[in-house]
């Protein structure tokens, strides 16, 4: 019944997997869904780093000892790899952000949605490969 005055009971359970994050597994992701998932993950990842970062620069205000002590943590290899991942995430997020903005404001962009995503990958790689090279070189040195 669509527009109704006659009450009827709810029936049938909501079966597992039809709602909530579990549903993600139920759909074979098209390109657009991947690009969004990555955008969200990288966005949240960068946010996490940012929050940490704010804490640590706050410590700058407590003087050189406190701050420099903390730096050893940042120089730990695990953290340095994390840093590379951070940069990757930020680059991807930035490039894909531009794609989204293009789609939002350029009326024809929807026709090239796929191509734009591949463009994002290209831009991302073009930025990330040299960056990663420099960072890894600094790290192994």
């Amino acid at each position: 019944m669509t527009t109704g005055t006659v009450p009827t009971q709810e029936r049938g359970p909501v079966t597992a997997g039809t709602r909530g994050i579990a549903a993600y597994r139920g759909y074979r992701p098209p390109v657009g869904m991947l690009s969004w998932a990555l955008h969200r993950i990288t966005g949240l990842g960068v946010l996490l780093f940012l929050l940490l970062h704010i804490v640590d620069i706050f410590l700058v205000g407590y003087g050189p000892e406190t701050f420099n002590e903390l730096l050893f943590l940042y120089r730990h290899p695990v953290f340095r790899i994390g840093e590379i991942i951070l940069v990757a995430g930020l680059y991807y997020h930035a490039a894909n952000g531009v794609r989204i903005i293009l789609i939002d404001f350029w009326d024809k962009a929807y026709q090239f949605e796929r191509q734009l995503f591949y463009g994002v990958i290209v831009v991302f790689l073009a930025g990330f490969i040299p960056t990663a090279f420099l960072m890894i070189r600094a790290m192994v040195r």
Partner: protein
Amino acid sequence: MQVTLRIQRFNPETDTKPHYQEYTVEVEPTDRVLDALNQVKWYQDGSLTYRRSCAHGICGSDAMRINGRNRLACKVLIKDLGPKITIEPLLGFKVIKDLVVDLEPFFAQYRTVMPYLINDEPPPTRERLQTPEERELIEDTSKCILCACCTSACPIFWTTEWLGPAAIVNGHRFLFDSRDRATEERLAVLNQRFGVWRCRTIFNCTEACPRGIQVTHAIEQVKRRILFEQS
């Protein structure tokens, strides 16, 4: 050729959880998936339950997940899928039985956008005029058959209650109709907290639409309309 259908089954009278059941049927490569389902229902297991009517993609009854994507069973041919086909109900809706889901929430979303022409001016004795160019603006969105493929393909819909692409498409249909006079009210509905802004331009909707409607584009047009007309 022989194909194996792996179908998600659920009978509320006996099951607590859905399970999968496999059927093997003999079909032509050019048959529709719906033909294969009919084969099963008619000659192997009459309890298999799904909706269907027109069998050529214009009524929107048989939207379901076929190999993980939302499709109309009558608009995909076996030859494009290969010998093993998984068929499941649409995501995000309550399953009533097997492949039949409760679409009432979907139609409720649709009704919120006031999907009808609003124009209280006294009509002329003949038709209201509309140029072919003005008509062209609603060509795409007026094709919608309310099959729910798009809305139930949208990841945001799986986790949140929001208007969903199909309702927006139908809002667009009237928003861009030169004869409509309710632009402001409609934009107000679409501008709600769970209106167009929930869309994250994921494009699953466009990819799923069996009518080839540029759903995301329509949503973007609505966003821009709100942006440039209301604020």
